[in-house]
């Protein structure tokens, strides 16, 4: 089955937005519990972007970002990647660890990396569990792995998977708001090639 995001109709985009909405909603709730603070979110945007434009996202391909990556197994196989701009990740870690010295460092020590990994685990985990509830599919997340590096290099991981199918990437942009801080997160949901049909069928998009 070939997949072409450019030809997705409004209904299919709506379905994906709804997945993003519910997933991000759950993620925001989980984040609020973890931070013990009120967390709001904006309505997620479904974005479809050609490879040549990918370099412009997240403030440029060389911008340091935090990528948290999990594999999905079960009825649906594939991977999920959450990208946080490194400044935003810094803010989250500082809130989480009760620090106030926001010196905008884009490097993280071992404990901070571990905290970020846990954060990603909870965000991606709640995302996967809502996808699982919505579709009735049994989906299990793996232990997450984390990388802090150039945006382009991190996005190349899901982009390559999308590249096997077409010439664009599809992702869901979510903004979390905590107090005066707005944190942008991008979710890349990358089902394996055979899993697209499973996913769209489970959602009733195709018969």
């Amino acid at each position, binding site marked *: 089955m070939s997949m072409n995001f450019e030809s997705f109709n409004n209904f299919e985009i709506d379905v994906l937005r709804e997945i993003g909405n519910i997933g991000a909603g759950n993620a925001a709730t989980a984040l609020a519990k973890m931070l013990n603070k009120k967390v709001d979110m904006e309505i997620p945007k479904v974005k479809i972007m050609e*490879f040549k434009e990918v370099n412009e996202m997240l403030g440029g*391909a060389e911008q340091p970002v935090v990528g948290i990556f999990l594999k999905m197994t079960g009825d649906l196989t594939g991977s999920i990647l959450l990208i946080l701009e490194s400044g935003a990740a810094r803010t989250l870690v500082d809130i989480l660890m009760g620090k106030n010295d926001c010196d905008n460092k884009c490097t993280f020590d071992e404990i901070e990396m571990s905290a970020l990994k846990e954060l990603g685990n909870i965000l991606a985990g709640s995302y996967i569990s809502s996808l699982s509830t919505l579709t009735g599919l049994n989906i299990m997340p793996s232990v997450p792995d984390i*990388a802090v590096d*150039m945006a382009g290099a991190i996005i*190349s991981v899901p*982009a*390559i998977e999308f590249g096997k199918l077409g010439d664009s990437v599809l992702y869901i942009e979510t903004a979390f708001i905590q107090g005066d801080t707005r944190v942008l997160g991008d979710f890349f949901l990358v089902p394996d090639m055979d899993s697209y049909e499973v996913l769209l069928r489970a959602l009733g998009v195709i018969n």
Partner: protein
Amino acid sequence: MDNIIKVGMADMQVARHPAMLTTLGLGSCVGIALFDRTTGIVGLAHCMLPDSSQSKNVTNIAKFVDTALEALVERMVGLGANRGKIIAKLAGGAQMFNFSQSTDLMRIGFRNVTAAKQKLEQLKIPLVSEDTGGNYGRTIVLDSATGILQVKTIGYGVKEI
């Protein structure tokens, strides 16, 4: 430095002296830099996948190592490059995330680099240097005056190959 031409993801460009070619944030993708010293003609491709024959969708030839490399050489020759004088340098092909189960997705960087080496050999283009593998991203700049490929990273320094 206003003569820098950007090469995007799944993209390729050729240029002549004094232009520079650059591609930003190479991860598991491989950057293939070609240089002909005799004419100062350079080519740079940012490829995502090793082999076009494995894909049903080959609308963008720059996406695949095999088709991009062939086309890149042709375009350089079209600009006046001397086919027998072209040399190659490689960068990228990292594994950004580590997982115990090494699936295809995880090994894609290594496969991209291997495919590039095989194709270079087939085209009889000597590979003079490389900075590949590892688990970090790279930005590369190819200088048409010297053929030097500058590799920049976050936390792993800058080098010239």
